[in-house]
C-alpha cells in the first residue's frame, strides 16, 4: 500500500481532572489512505471525539496529548522527542499552532460535527457565512465567492439555492443544515474530512440521503474521510475500513466486510448482537451486560473482561495489544483479544471467570455509576 495520508501511532490523550487522570485515548494507532472512508466506532465515552480533536490538535485544557505521533502528508502534526535531560518536548518539525490554524484546519483537514448549530452563526445568513468562508480560504472576490457558494449549495442538494442563500440557519431543517456544513467542509477541497456523528441526530430518511451524497462526492473529489459513529449500520453502509474503540483503545481493526463476517473481538460481536434489526423480528435482544467502565481507572488486563462472555482468568492479568489475525504481514485485520492463537498465552487452559455476563437480571448496574457522555 502507498504512504498513508494520515497516520496515527500510539496516540495518548488525557484529561487531568480533580477526580484523577482520564485516559480518554490510550495508545491508539491507525492509518487513513487516500480516498478511503475509515470508520471510528464505539459507544459514547469510548474516546472517539477526543481522538478526532487530537488529530486537529484541538484538545482543550484540562486535556492534553501526552504521547504518540500524528503524521499528515509527511508533515508532523504531533510528535515528541527526548531532550538531553530525558524530558519530552515537541519535535522541531512539529507544525506550529499558526500553521495548524492557517494551513491545516478547515483547508486540508475539515471537520463536521453532530450539531450543525454549533458551527453556524444564527444571526447571519447561511449563504453569507458560506461566501465569507470561501472568500477567506480561497482568496476569491465577493461575487465570485457568492457564485461558488450557490454552486456548492446546489451540489449538496439544497433546494432553490439562489433564494435559500439569503435565509438564516433556523429556517433550514436539521438535514439541510448538515448539508450546509458538508458544503463548507468541501468548499476548500480538503484532503481529509473528519465527520463526528454527523447524521446521528437525523431521521433515517435524511441520513440515507446524506450518506448517498457523501459517497457521490467522495468518488468525485477523492476526499478521504474519518467517519465517527456508534451505529454499525452506518459503518456497514459507508466505511471501507473500521476501527472499533472500547474505553480509549482500538480493540479491532479490519476491512468492513471482515469486521462483520469474520469478527474477531468479543466486544465487536456483542455490539452487533445487541442491535434490534429492521429486516427481521428478533425475539430476544442480547444486550452487553453492564455499562462501559470509567476511563479514570480502567480495569486491569483486557478492559472488556468484566462484560465479556468468553473471559478467562488470563484476561484479567494480561493486557492485550492489537495483533494481526490474518497471519500476513500487511496488517489488514487486527484484534486485541487473547483468545486468539496470535497471543498464545494459555487462554485455552485458563479457567473461565465469573463475570457480569453470567449474572442475573439486575446486572445492568455499576458500582461506580456515572457514564461518560
Amino acid at each position: 500500500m502507498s504512504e498513508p495520508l494520515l497516520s496515527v501511532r500510539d496516540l495518548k490523550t488525557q484529561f487531568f481532572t480533580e477526580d484523577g487522570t482520564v485516559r480518554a485515548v490510550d495508545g491508539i494507532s491507525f492509518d487513513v489512505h487516500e480516498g478511503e472512508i475509515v470508520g471510528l466506532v464505539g459507544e459514547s465515552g469510548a474516546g472517539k471525539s477526543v481522538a478526532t480533536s487530537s488529530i486537529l490538535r484541538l484538545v482543550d485544557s484540562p486535556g492534553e496529548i501526552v504521547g504518540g505521533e500524528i503524521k499528515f502528508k509527511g508533515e508532523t502534526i504531533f510528535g515528541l522527542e527526548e531532550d538531553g535531560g530525558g524530558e519530552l518536548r515537541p519535535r522541531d518539525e512539529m507544525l506550529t499552532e499558526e500553521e495548524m490554524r492557517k494551513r491545516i484546519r478547515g483547508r486540508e483537514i475539515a471537520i463536521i460535527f453532530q450539531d450543525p448549530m454549533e458551527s453556524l452563526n444564527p444571526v447571519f445568513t447561511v449563504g453569507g457565512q458560506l461566501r465569507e468562508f470561501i472568500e477567506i480560504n480561497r482568496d476569491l472576490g465577493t461575487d465570485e465567492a457568492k457564485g461558488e457558494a450557490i454552486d456548492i449549495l446546489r451540489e449538496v442538494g439544497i433546494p432553490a439555492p439562489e433564494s435559500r442563500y439569503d435565509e438564516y440557519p433556523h429556517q433550514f431543517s436539521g438535514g439541510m443544515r448538515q448539508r450546509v456544513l458538508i458544503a463548507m467542509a468541501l468548499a476548500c477541497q480538503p484532503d481529509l474530512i473528519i465527520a463526528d456523528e454527523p447524521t446521528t441526530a437525523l431521521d433515517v430518511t435524511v441520513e440515507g440521503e446524506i450518506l448517498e451524497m457523501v459517497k457521490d462526492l467522495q468518488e468525485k473529489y477523492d476526499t478521504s474521510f474519518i467517519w465517527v459513529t456508534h451505529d454499525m449500520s452506518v459503518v456497514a453502509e459507508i466505511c471501507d475500513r473500521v476501527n472499533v474503540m472500547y474505553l480509549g483503545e482500538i480493540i479491532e481493526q479490519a476491512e468492513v466486510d471482515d469486521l462483520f463476517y469474520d469478527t474477531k473481538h468479543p466486544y465487536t460481536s456483542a455490539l452487533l448482537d445487541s442491535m434490534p434489526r429492521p429486516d427481521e423480528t428478533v425475539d430476544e435482544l442480547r444486550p452487553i451486560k453492564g455499562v462501559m467502565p470509567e476511563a479514570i481507572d480502567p480495569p486491569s488486563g483486557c478492559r472488556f473482561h468484566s462484560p465479556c462472555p468468553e473471559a478467562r482468568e488470563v484476561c484479567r492479568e494480561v493486557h492485550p495489544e492489537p495483533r494481526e489475525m490474518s497471519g500476513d504481514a500487511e496488517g489488514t485485520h487486527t484484534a486485541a483479544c487473547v483468545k486468539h492463537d496470535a497471543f498464545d498465552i494459555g487462554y485455552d487452559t485458563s479457567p473461565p471467570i465469573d463475570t457480569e455476563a453470567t449474572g442475573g437480571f439486575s446486572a445492568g448496574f455499576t458500582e461506580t455509576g456515572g457514564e461518560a457522555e
Partner: protein
Amino acid sequence: MTKVGPPESDPEALLQVRNLKKHFDNESGLLAGVQLDDEFPYVSRSTSDVRAVDGVDFDIKEGETLGLVGESGCGKSTLARTVLRLLEPTEGSVYFQGKDLASLSGEPLRRMRKNMQMIFQDPQSSLDPRMKVGPIVEEPMKAHGMLDEEGREARAKELLEKVGLDPQHYNRYPHAFSGGQRQRVNLARALSVNPDFIVCDEPVSALDVSIQAQVLNTMEELQEEFDLTYLFIAHDLSVIRHISDRVAVMYLGNIVELADKEELFENPQHPYTQALLDAIPVPDPRSGGRTALLSGDVPSPIDPPSGCRFRTRCPKVIQPEEYDMSDGAWRNLVEFQRAVERRAFEETDPDVLRSRYFQDAVPSGDAGTLLDEALGHIERDKFEDAERILVERFADQSVCATARPAYEIESEIGDGRHYSACHLRRDEAVATAVDEATVGGAARPGTEAPEADD
C-alpha cells in the same frame, strides 16, 4: 355525566382515539420563545395554525404495545401529550376504559390520570437533579395519596429492584447514574402508582445501542409482570419492530398506515411506509445499502398539502385521469416538476432538459403540449411560470391532491385489520372513507372512517 365509549365501541380496547386534532397557533406553538424584535427580523410571523396532529383515529387493546413511528416533527409527541390530556385537544375525543376523558374533571380525572403514565426521551432532564432517586420514585405515589411514608419507601425500593437497579441506591442523586440507569429510574417512577397504560416517548433513543437493548428487555419483562399496555413512540424502526404488537405510521399530523407488526413490516401498503423501510440501514455491508430514497423535505404543517399529505414526496403519485401518458412519461414529468420547484438546475435549454429528464419517455398529446409550454418558459428564464403550469395542470389534478385517502384492506399476514391512507389501494379496499371535498387538506375522513384497529 360520563359518556360511555365511542359509537363503534370495542370492549377489548383500553384506549380509543377519535378524530383527534391538536393545532397550535404560531405564537404559542413552535415558535414560542423565539425573540421577535427588530434586531432579529428573520422570524416571520404568521397567523395560521400549525396542524401538529390533524385527525387521528386508533385503538389500543389491553396488554398490547402499539408502536408509533414517523420522522421527527411529524406530530408523535404532540399526539402522545394530547392523548394524555397534558395538552388540550383542538378537536376529537379520547376514551380511556370506555370513558371520554373530556367529560372528566376533578377527582375522577385525577384517578384516571394515575392509570396513565408517561416516560420521556431524555432521561437526563426528566429527573430533578436536586432530588434523590428514592423520593423521585415516590413522588407520584405521594401526589396520589398512596400508602404511608414507610410503605412508599418499601415500594420504591422494591420497584428499583424490579427495574434492574440496586435498592441500596435509594439515596443517590440522578447524576450518579448512567443514561440507561436514569431511564430505569423513570420506569420505576411511572410504575409506582400501578398504572394500566404507559406512554413511552422515545424512551431509548438517547441511549447507546447496547444499553437500549437492556432497557427494552426490561420494559418487556415489566409489561408481562404488571399487565401493562404501551403506546411506544420511536423514530427507529428497528426498535419499533422489536417491541410492538401493532404499528402506526405517522406523517405530517396524520396516521398513514396501521397494521399488525409482521403485516406492516412484511407487507407495507403505503408508499411512505415503504420508503421508511427502504431507508433503514441494515447492519450488513453485503446488503447493498438502502434502496430508493425519498427526496425533498417534509412540508410545513402550517399549510400541509391537500389530499394525501405525502404527495409532494411520493414516488408513486397517481397520474391525473385527464391524461393518458405512459407510466414512464408520468414519472419523468413528476421528477421534472419537483426539480423545477426545487430549482435544482440552472440549465434553460429545452433540448438539454429533455434529454436529461425525458430520455426514455416523453409525454405526448395534451400533456406534451403543456410540457412544451413549461420548457418554453424556462428557456426565457421564467421558472415561476413553468412551475405554475406543472403544479396546477399536473400535480394538483391528481386524485392524490383532490381527495384525502382512507382505506381498509385485507391483511396478508395474520387476521388483524390493515388501514392504509393511499389511493393506490382503492381497488382492493374492503372499506373506504374518502372525502372528495378535501382540497386544502383541512377536512377529515367521513364519519364511517374505517377503524384500522379492533
